[in-house]
């Protein structure tokens, strides 16, 4: 943590746990409120919640309290253990995502050398939870939803990884902290005033990343696993009360985490021109937050505007378009890396 302080191992651990436990629900709440409740409402020419708190800002907390009061219902023919475990696994994968995201030069829960690979690996753990949920619910809609989710997440894991490989090649590292530093110290044609946010050089990678992240998050246009109008919320159909709340938090927490990864990889993470050293540790979290909101805005904007693809169209789009495109992107990045 901050260099001047010397904390014992258990103290830093306690701080880290508190931060992660605090950030995930807070991130989910902020995204849920700002985008799901308010932005969507205003895009649809309505106000959204207005009563709970100023401008309805406490609506999600009220909803959370309501969920906690609900009866914990197990379907009669459900596999009870698996059914109960599934939302926890989904949420766990969300929690693990936050471990590697740096919010300052020295601020990150764990500065892993393979941070990027780690983040993408744990994000795909959630599909196990989703499959468990779909299978254990003993509901045909849930099962179809879960199988769609599995197919979709496998298909989109690949473009997601291939999209960020370009960044890793350019930065020369899988360490998220190093990637941010590389962007901070980068130069555009010899001018280093604004660093070199990789969105400029990796624009194709960024677009692929956003599309694939959208699919990973199972948001419209790729929300077939939950598809309200056909599968009636898919794998979540049978969940009530706090177990449903877990899925909800997992969904928005993951959206927050993916936006943060996108901001770290392509927008320069905690770096903002003109601020270096110790000050960056203090301003960093706010900068990251602002960039997260920017990326999340893109993700949710797509979500509220587009209709849903069909499962086979989605697979065709991933395998026939996104993956070849990201491979071309990698080759181009490699050639240019050698050339310059």
């Amino acid at each position, binding site marked *: 943590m901050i260099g001047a302080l010397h904390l014992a191992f258990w103290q830093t651990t306690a701080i880290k746990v508190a931060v992660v436990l605090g950030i995930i629900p807070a991130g989910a709440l902020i995204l849920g409120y700002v985008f799901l409740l308010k932005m969507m409402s205003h895009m649809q020419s309505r106000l959204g919640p207005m009563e709970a708190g100023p401008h309805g800002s406490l609506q999600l907390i009220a909803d959370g309290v309501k969920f906690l009061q609900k009866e914990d219902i197990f379907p009669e023919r459900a596999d009870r253990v698996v059914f109960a475990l599934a939302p926890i696994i989904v949420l766990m994968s969300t929690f693990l995502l936050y471990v590697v995201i740096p919010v300052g030069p020295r601020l990150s829960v764990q500065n892993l050398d393979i941070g990027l690979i780690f983040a993408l690996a744990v994000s795909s753990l959630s599909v196990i939870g989703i499959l468990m949920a779909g299978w254990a619910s003993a509901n045909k809609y849930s099962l*179809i939803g879960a199988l769609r989710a599995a197919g979709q997440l496998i298909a989109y894991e690949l473009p997601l990884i291939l999209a960020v490989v370009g960044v890793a090649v350019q930065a020369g590292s899988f360490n998220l902290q190093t990637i941010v530093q590389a962007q901070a110290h980068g130069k555009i044609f010899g001018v280093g005033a604004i660093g070199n946010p990789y969105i400029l050089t990796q624009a194709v990678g960024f677009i692929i990343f956003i599309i694939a992240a959208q699919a990973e998050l199972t948001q419209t*246009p790729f929300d077939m696993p939950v*598809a309200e109008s056909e*599968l009636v919320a898919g794998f979540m159909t049978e969940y009530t009360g706090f177990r449903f709340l877990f899925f909800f938090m997992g969904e928005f927490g993951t959206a927050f985490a993916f936006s943060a990864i996108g901001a770290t990889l392509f927008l320069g993470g905690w770096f903002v021109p003109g601020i270096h050293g110790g000050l960056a540790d203090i301003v960093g979290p706010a900068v990251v937050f602002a960039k997260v909101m920017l990326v999340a805005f893109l993700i949710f904007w797509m979500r509220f*505007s*587009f*209709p*849903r693809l069909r499962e086979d*169209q989605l697979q065709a789009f991933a395998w026939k378009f996104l993956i070849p495109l990201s491979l071309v992107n990698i080759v181009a990045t490699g050639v240019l890396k050698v050339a310059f």
Partner: protein
Amino acid sequence: MSVTTDWRQAAYIAGQAADARVNVELETEGTTLNIGPQHPATHGTLRIVVRLDGEQVVWAEPVMGYMHRGYEKLTEVRTYPQITTLINRIDWLGHFANEVPFILAAEKLMGVEAPPRAQWIRTIFFEMARISNVALFLGDMGVQLGAITPVFYAFRDREHVLNLMEAATGGRFHPNYDRIGGLKEDLPKGWVDECKGVMKRMRGFCDELDDLLLGNEIFQARTRGIGVIPKAVGLSYGVSGSNIRASGVDWDLRRDSESPLAWKSCDWKVWTHPDGDSFARYWVRLQETREATKIVDQLLDSLPAGPIMAKVPRIIKVPAGEAWEHTENPLGEMGYYVVSQGGLGPIRVKIRSASFNNISITPWLLRGVYVPDVITILASLYFILGDIDR
């Protein structure tokens, strides 16, 4: 057997062979899935039983009757003015349009004709019912395909049409405005100007959806070539309205029947589309909504003065006889066959509602499609449950 040199045919044969191998190796059992009676896509209580192989529909059967309201029987114990209230609710979004064919049939039996102003206003309200009805479809189709925004625009703009309805008739949903021989009352002051403004607004709404949904690549990918109704099949199932016009049948009762309503005095176009798929049905409805606003505008400009009620006795007794009247309702052809024996009410009324026939094509149409396409097809056929189980 000769060896083919056409690579497309070769690829096709290879694909078939591969499929056949898989089918032999993996003998899978189908799933039976109940879509409905409680399901968001059936907006009501329609139940569709589908047998699935993976996500592909092998067999589908709509099950109706969960909301049966016995209207044909109820008409036998009502007087003519009372029936208007009842039949308002058949297609609850097309409210006023349901009243018109019945009243026309009764007028035919009585030998009464409503004065021109009444016919004009009837036509205006008929088209407004179409606009408010189809506007909801235009938005709802988006919801069924996963785009949640259009339906809110539909509700926003449709509200203005309903407000106009309310201003003139006192009822937003069930105007009960049509009378044998004319109308309940005349239009309120300033209504005509306001109506023109709203029609302009609805044209703006159509343009907005044109941009937002119709031009969207994903929307097109989801609807083009999905649920194709060939001309002959559609006609043999009795599909009517926009659904059959989307299959290229140039048939519109507003133009093609001898209706006393004022459509013939306007300049408008019957839109058809050659494709017959879900996209064509959406496209045709969008064009028809535009066309309806133009009809209303023209009728407002040429609105004749005069009485709104013909001379009819206070207690309506319809002479013995039989009459059939049908009109082009928002959902398709709607007709009433009224049999009277000279009493206060009819002895028998046969109601021909469009959705019942439109939905009867689903077993044919749903075979071999994927589960998401089931929803697309149901949405694009556009049925109202009250219109099926009347």
